């Protein structure tokens, strides 16, 4: 895909710079003339949307850090001051807080898009792995950031998550104390969490750079999963996809703004507006919605170490996914069986999120009649989660008979049926 550069410096200054630092050439080849499959649908706009999310978080974060005080005695009050007295502080904080949720919403759609169209398969394994690294860093940043307001959920979330490391045999205790810088979550913990929360977004930006690099070597996957063969299959990235991504970003911002201006607290937890109190744990402690599935997996195992291993395993398995899926066909559009298992996986993830939000002993609605509580529910779904990666995808490659695929991307969009509306994910 990344053929010879088509950049042609027009002016003397451009030629002068190009022979010294070909940065304009890099931008031109990557974002202007970059050949992009012409059949990308709206599910492929989330890369651009995520870039916007990262920029929004970094910019609002930098200005919030100008007012935030990372001290247990002042952190909560400094957030209140941002909300009440700092010019536009309420707006910036709402954007940053809602932005975290929107970032995860977009990244989940981006990940499921990749799972469905087989974007993790050769030659895009490194691209996928870098994506999983970004996702891990995002979770770390989100967790650290959630501690900063120093509300009840901040404090107890920090306590519970850091206690996870206590499950490690032998060194668990010392590691937990090392994380805390004391004997419990306290001022030193808050200080280091603030420092790391400020650092991680820049690490993410760096890995995003690698992610885009790794994308531009093989080029985009596409809904058919068929590799680009001729220039008939592609369009230049600009203006075709800059405009399409731009439209998708604008639509995304409508949803974003609706939360910021009309429901800024609905994605958060009321208890985090109570200042941290090491003496009282809130009755019902849950992580933010985007971490709930992992919380459910953690609780599915009645053993501390086992739960922690399983929870990290749920992310770890993503790293080896490119080698677990044995099918030669990328897109599930042409995989009649895998498609349904994918739907099951999607439902399992949503169900795990639900189970994570509920108390384990509560009965599941309707299913509760036959004695199914959320613990059991979560266990079944956890089982499916791992089976999908470790059993279903490896086996399917051998037993599934893929549907016939078009000869090329161009043939897929011109031949046979009428051009599908771009909004449809799989047609």
């Amino acid at each position, binding site marked *: 895909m990344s053929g010879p550069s088509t950049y042609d410096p027009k002016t003397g200054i451009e030629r002068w710079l190009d022979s010294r630092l070909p940065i304009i050439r890099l931008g031109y080849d990557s974002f202007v003339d970059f050949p992009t499959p012409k059949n990308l649908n709206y599910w492929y706009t989330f890369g651009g949307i995520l870039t916007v999310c990262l920029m929004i978080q970094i*910019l609002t974060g930098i*200005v919030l850090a*100008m*007012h935030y005080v990372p001290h247990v005695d002042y952190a909560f009050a400094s957030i209140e*001051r941002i909300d*009440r*007295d*700092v*010019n*536009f*502080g309420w*707006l*910036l904080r709402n954007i940053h807080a809602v932005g975290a949720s929107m970032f995860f919403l977009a990244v989940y759609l981006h990940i499921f898009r990749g799972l469905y169209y087989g974007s993790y398969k050769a030659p895009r394994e490194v691209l996928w792995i870098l994506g999983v690294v970004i996702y891990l860093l995002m979770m770390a940043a989100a967790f650290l950031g959630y501690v900063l307001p120093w509300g009840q959920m901040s404090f107890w979330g920090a306590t519970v998550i850091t206690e996870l490391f206590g499950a490690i045999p032998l060194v668990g205790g010392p590691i937990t104390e090392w994380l805390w810088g004391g004997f419990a979550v306290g001022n030193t913990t808050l200080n280091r969490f603030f420092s790391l929360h400020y650092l991680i977004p820049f690490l993410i930006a760096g890995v995003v750079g690698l992610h885009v690099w790794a994308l531009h070597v093989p080029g985009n996957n596409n809904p058919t999963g068929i590799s680009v063969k001729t220039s008939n299959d592609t369009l230049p990235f600009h203006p075709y996809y800059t*405009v399409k991504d*731009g439209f998708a970003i*604008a639509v995304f911002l409508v949803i974003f703004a609706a939360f910021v201006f009309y429901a800024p607290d609905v994605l958060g937890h009321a208890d985090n507006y109570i200042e941290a109190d090491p003496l009282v744990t809130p009755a019902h402690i849950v992580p933010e919605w985007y971490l709930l599935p992992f919380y459910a997996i953690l609780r599915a195992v009645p053993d501390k170490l086992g739960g922690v291993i399983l929870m990290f395993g749920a992310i770890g398995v993503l790293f080896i996914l490119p080698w677990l899926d044995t099918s030669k066909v990328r897109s599930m559009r042409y995989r009649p069986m895998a498609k349904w298992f994918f739907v099951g996986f999607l439902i399992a993830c949503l169900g795990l999120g639900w189970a994570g939000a509920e108390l384990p002993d509560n009965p599941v609605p309707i299913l509760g009649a036959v004695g199914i509580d959320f613990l059991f529910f979560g266990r079944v779904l956890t089982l499916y989660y791992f089976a999908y990666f470790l059993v279903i995808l490896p086996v399917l490659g051998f037993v599934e008979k893929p549907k016939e695929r078009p000869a090329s991307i161009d043939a897929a969009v011109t031949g046979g049926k009428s051009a599908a509306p771009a909004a449809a994910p799989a047609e």
Partner: protein
Amino acid sequence: MTDETQAVDGGEETTRRDFIYIAAGGTAAIGGALTLWPFIDQMNPAADTLAEASTEVNLAALDEGVGITVMFRSRPHFVRRRTAAEVEAAAEADVNRLPDSNARNVNIGDGELATVDNRSALTAAVADGVTVDEAFARTILVSGANCTHLGCVPTEGAGEYDAWFCPCHGSHYDTAGRIRRGPAPENLPIPPMTFTAPTTLVLG
């Protein structure tokens, strides 16, 4: 919208298409520019900073010829009860020939002459029901304590006028806090002040 007289080359179609691109790009650019404002304005002083509490000075605790420095709006301010000799020394100067003949006193508005009276606590507001001894008020000087050159705090009782001398770049102020010699461009500013009791002055 579509100006047909201009649609020479590509016809109406091209003009309309260009209009849509320009309108979309322009709208996005305007939105982006407006979004910058909250990011800039958040660095301006916040409401609590602007509302910072006023400072109360008990003048009764000052003997003649004694000055103290108080903090008001995060900056030091000189409060000095001058001796009669000091007041007279300042009154001798020809106001119109001073480097800065402006009183620099927010209590009386801009443009008043930098006379000794115009720079003393005589100009302070007086709360209802309070009577202030004018002769006493005339001896009180309250001024900002940061040199109007580059912000250093001048040394008290030094310099050519035995009043204030700025050690940073050699500005000499007289006993009315007026710049007399050196690089400073303006007299030391007089803060807003109110007598809430005969010997209690509130800055702010």
